[in-house]
């Protein structure tokens, strides 16, 4: 996982709320056995016509969206399926942060484990950002993870929440598995007192 400290990047906005992971990456693309190359199918159903040509009116296909690394989206982003292919696809496309009023739990967890930053803002800030993005296709925002702030073009700084553990992992690019592996002696001690409830290997 790469470190995430600061980001100053172009914003692309999708106003829709409840964008589910089936929209982010349709199931048909989950037959892959690797994490790479999913970006070309990000938002596939919204992005391409039946013949595979790009839908010109979809924001991601417009020239203005090129190079955007921050996605501004409606409430409850990432609901539905637990597929980690969703953050993989967003990151493979080039997104590094998603700004919304809320995220679905599993999507948020998956994103933090891959270095994709979910930024939660209040409704008023979100509405302001949406109208800024509609007015200015070249809108840039800067994010500072250390101070947990999103800097608006008018100079306003908005704080966003992130738990301290995930923040450290993001800042330092640490895989959370390493933390669990360090606790293996405690896990073994726990198991010693625990007993074995179900044994899947016993033929039954």
């Amino acid at each position, binding site marked *: 996982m790469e470190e995430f400290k600061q980001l100053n990047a172009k914003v692309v906005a999708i*106003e*829709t*709320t*409840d964008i*589910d992971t*089936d*929209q982010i990456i*349709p*199931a*048909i693309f*989950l*037959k*892959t*056995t*690797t*994490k790479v190359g999913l970006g070309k199918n990000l938002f596939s*159903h919204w992005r391409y016509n*039946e013949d595979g040509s790009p839908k010109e009116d979809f924001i991601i296909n417009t020239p203005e969206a090129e190079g955007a690394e921050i996605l501004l989206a*409606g*409430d*409850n982003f990432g*609901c*539905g*399926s*637990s*597929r*980690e292919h969703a953050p993989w696809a967003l990151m493979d496309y080039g997104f590094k942060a998603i700004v919304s009023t*809320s*995220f*679905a*739990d*599993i999507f948020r*967890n*998956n994103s933090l*484990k*891959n270095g994709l930053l979910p930024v939660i803002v209040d*409704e008023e800030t979100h509405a302001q950002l949406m109208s800024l993005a509609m007015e200015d296709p070249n809108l840039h925002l800067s994010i500072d993870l250390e101070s947990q702030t999103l800097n608006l073009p008018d100079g306003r700084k908005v704080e966003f929440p992130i*738990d*301290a*553990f995930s923040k450290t992992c993001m800042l330092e690019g640490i895989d*959370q*598995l390493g*933390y*669990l*592996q360090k*606790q*293996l002696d*405690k*896990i073994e001690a*726990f*198991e010693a007192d*625990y007993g*074995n*409830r*179900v*044994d*899947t*290997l*016993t033929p*039954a």
Partner: protein
Amino acid sequence: MSKPRTLFEKIWDKHVVMQEGNNPSVLYIDLHLVHEVTSPQAFQGLRDKGLTVRRPDKTIATMDHSIPTTPIGQPITDKIAAAQIRQMERNCQEFGVRLFDMDSENRGIVHVIGPEHGLTQPGMTIVCGDSHTSTHGAFGALAFGIGTSEVEHVMATQTLLQRKPKTMEIRVNGKLKPGVTSKDIILAIIAKNGVAGGTGYVFEYTGEAIRSLSMEERMTICNMSIEGGARAGMIAPDETTFEYIKGKPHAPKGAEWDAAVEYWKSLPTDEGAEYDALVELNADDLTPMITYGTHPGMGMPIAGTVPAPADVPVGERFTLEKALTYMDVEGGKPLLGKEIDVVFLGSCTNSRITDLRAAADLIKGHKVSDSVRFMVVPGSQKVKIQAEKEGLDKIFMEAGADWRTAGCSMCIAMNGDQLAPGEYAISTSNRNFEGRQGKGGRTFLASPLTAVASAITGKVTDVRDMMEG
């Protein structure tokens, strides 16, 4: 006297290995269910790091998402899916994980086979790289979906890093009327509470209406907890639960059974324990439900009218307009009588033997409308075998339905079972997202009874009319 605790808190407390400062808890996992779609990258992660599956005895694998539902033995024509399935076989062999493979009579949808093998038991922590893992909460287990990184964490350590969620009691009072099912209860809950209403919470379903449900009906409810935003949904174990588990292949036996039941009886929420939130509804007020839009929260009583964008709060208008355009349905109008093209009876929500029995009972003596393709996909091979033993397959086929082998099938439409663009389906599955059942396809979620009634008429139909007639 210790502080009264909820069902969730009792299970959580028992499984916390450790918790340092402000860090998340290290939570022990009793059962890890694995399928072919969300595991390959986790196995590869282990390989890259030189790690093993630490507790293969707490891990079980099957194939369900990308597999065909054509008769066993026919070649898999989708080369990419075939490669994923071969990879699964290799991964399980290499890491010593027991796999119910394509030829196995034990194979099926991961959330159907856990309970039917008695692997799912009260008080356990159960995870799977699949959001519908919440299904297993019907047994009074803490069960939730995880991403592939977390699949790797569990494989490597048998633990997960988790923050303690909040609890929400969903109390369903009263008694269901004829023609109204547990599917209608959960669709009504999500319509009321919203698709994000449960974010950050674990649901516990309580109340008279829940208590009177069978285990399979309870599974239907817990299954869709995730559609209400909650990663997990639970129901306290009771005699119904114990009766269902007893005699299942992995169920405890003899003295172990007695000890297990004694422990399970200690799990229900203590009197005086507090939840962080409460949602209440009355089963007497419920009618069959149907969704009209593109997420499971866009649901209504089947005889109701689709909301018009002008009738909803400003913040929801854009999304509702988009949904109605996609679905090509009109706000302010009813759905009853709308012509449909496909009926799908299946998925981890409604594909168990009692679902098939109820559906067969209703379709017996009727024919599927000429304009409808009706696909029946049992949740597991065991369900299929049982249904065939009871002659349900013949009832479905005589009515003109297509009887398939087990799998996720058209619920996720990865395997070629899918809608054509523009087609309308009534599905007993869990998601009506845009393109979920095939690009451009349109899904109305409903109960198996509503699905069958509509298959017969070729139109969105209120099953109660058919039952009275």
